[in-house]
């Protein structure tokens, strides 16, 4: 059968073959562009809407390009959501909890990958369980616990668990590091041990520098997930001074819905009606910092993904 195919191909002229491969390639790019359009759609809508004026918003003929772009929406959104104050909360919490995940999950993953010890399988089942049990199941006991410790209305419940390899998707990161360390050759550690290098130094000086790929993947994913998380911060934090950016958004959205429902347009101090465009601007402002961070790390992140050695569980 294969032979027949080769023969058939051979008989075709060079030009025909070229056209065929060209068409295939064209179709391939068309498919990719269509798919990436779907992926970018919410993002594009958000940006376009955020630039619209009040008139454009209610004009059905204006779907994509606003008749005139206004930047004032961003200005209003910026002040309305107290961006400057909250963005630092986000940066502090996300930075510290990402650091926590990177340190603690790599340690744990290393132990599971490279050591034999009693109860290993039972403990690893616990890691799998960590991946499967959603935080919603234990949210009340956690809430109660933190409130007993006096941790509510602070960043502690969000940051401290990550230093103990718990927190948002901790199990997933442990798993990631375990997979990576399992793929490394044992000779490295043996050589270090023969030379009298202690286990912790072996880990810090030899294994960790080799683990740049999963460190980066863990770091980026942890950063992005923490940045966007609003369930846990929403539960633990009520004090407006300690809010995180994504937890400000629900308030803004409810403000908009309220105004739409009652049709009473409540002007605030500045005499501005809060509209959808401003909301979109606020939403976009929320993700700008994390987007910049991702765009900077993007290339190395993808390289890290490729080298994280996830095959061969």
């Amino acid at each position, binding site marked *: 059968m*294969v032979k027949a195919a*080769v023969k058939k191909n051979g008989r075709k002229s060079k030009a025909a073959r070229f056209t065929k491969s060209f068409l295939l390639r064209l179709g*391939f790019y068309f498919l*990719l562009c*269509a*798919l*990436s359009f*779907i*992926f*970018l759609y*919410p993002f594009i809508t*958000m940006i376009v809407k955020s630039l619209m004026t009040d008139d454009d918003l209610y004009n059905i003929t204006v779907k994509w390009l606003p008749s005139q772009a206004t930047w004032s929406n961003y200005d209003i959104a910026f002040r309305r959501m107290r961006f400057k104050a909250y963005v630092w909360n986000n940066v502090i919490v996300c930075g510290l909890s990402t650091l926590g995940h990177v340190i*603690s999950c790599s*340690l*744990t993953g290393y*132990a599971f990958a490279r*050591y*034999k*010890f009693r109860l290993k399988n039972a403990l690893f089942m*616990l890691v799998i369980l960590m*991946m*499967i049990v*959603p935080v*919603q*199941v*234990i949210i*009340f*006991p*956690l809430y*109660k*616990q933190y409130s007993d410790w006096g941790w509510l209305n602070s960043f502690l419940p969000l940051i401290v*668990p990550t*230093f*103990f*390899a*718990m927190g948002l998707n901790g199990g*997933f990161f442990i798993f990631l590091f375990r997979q990576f360390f*399992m793929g490394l050759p044992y000779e490295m550690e043996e050589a270090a041990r023969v030379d009298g290098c202690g*286990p912790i130094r072996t880990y810090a000086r030899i294994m960790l520098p080799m683990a740049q790929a999963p460190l980066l993947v863990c770091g980026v994913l942890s950063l*992005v*997930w923490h940045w966007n998380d*609003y*369930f846990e911060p929403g*539960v633990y934090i009520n004090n407006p001074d300690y809010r995180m950016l*994504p937890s400000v958004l*629900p308030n803004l959205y409810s403000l908009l819905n309220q105004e739409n429902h009652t049709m009473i347009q409540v002007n605030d101090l500045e005499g501005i009606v809060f509209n959808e465009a401003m909301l979109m601007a606020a*939403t976009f402002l*929320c*993700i700008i910092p994390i*987007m910049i961070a*991702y765009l900077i790390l*993007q*290339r190395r992140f993808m390289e890290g*993904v*490729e080298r*994280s050695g*996830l*095959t*061969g*569980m």
Partner: protein
Amino acid sequence: MTVKNPGLSRKPRRMGIDRKRSLEAYIFLIPWLIGVCLFFAYPIFVSIRLSFSKIVSFKGLITEWVGLTNFEYIFFYDINFMPTFLQVVYDTLLNTPLCMVFSLVIAILINRKMVGRGFFRTAFFIPVLLGSGYIMKQLLGMGVDGTTITTGIMVPKLISDLIGPSITAVVQGFLDRITVVLWKSGVQIVLFLAGLQGISGSLYEAAKVDGATEWEMFWKITLPMITPIILMNMVYTIVAFFTDGTNPMVDYIKKVNFTNQQYEYGAAMSWVYFVFALILCLMCILLMRRHVYDSGAKN
């Protein structure tokens, strides 16, 4: 370490090599073990106890055992639980396979060498940046979905005249679902990419020499080699859909817990909900186990 047998005190520091290694492992595990006890095992214990009891006093959380009352209430009295729960189950059962297929296809597409590789890879990760959380929820709620594919393809008007409104509605619903699924498959695509990169190129070269087509290579090499990732992705996807911010059940649990303050009931409900997710995951693992490729790297 105390020396148990003084007669052997010639070598007091000698431990069995296995025990020593075991001890080293536990040094590495200390932070995680503390974390699991404080932030995972104990809350789970409290939560299970709560679901079988009634809170008598909040101070010190004194509870009274009431048996299965909370669960009875869930299944026989609560009119909100079952419809929401079934909706979520239905969505998960449909979305998970769709998500797997699409993310695998996309991962294979962008794994090739081509122009604009960096752009496409960023594009497919953008929904993850937009968040699994509130932002996506609102964009969906504002009717952003649905228009996406239909404006892209532009056939429904013509075809809907031909096949009638009922079938059009089904097709439309399906397209909407795909859009939503695609937006939520960023992480899965990344994981599949990692898996595809892990397959040794020499396998493909050997197959090519033997005259295999790309189609054959996909079924005989790619798919068997990434079965571990498929399994991991499936579990991840099920859990992600179950805990997603757009999920009505999550909202309901949060409402019962923190707005209605029925903590016992909330705990019972979340356990029913979780046990179902667990059953789904276990089913996946059991079904896939026979087919998962084992590289022999396990030790």
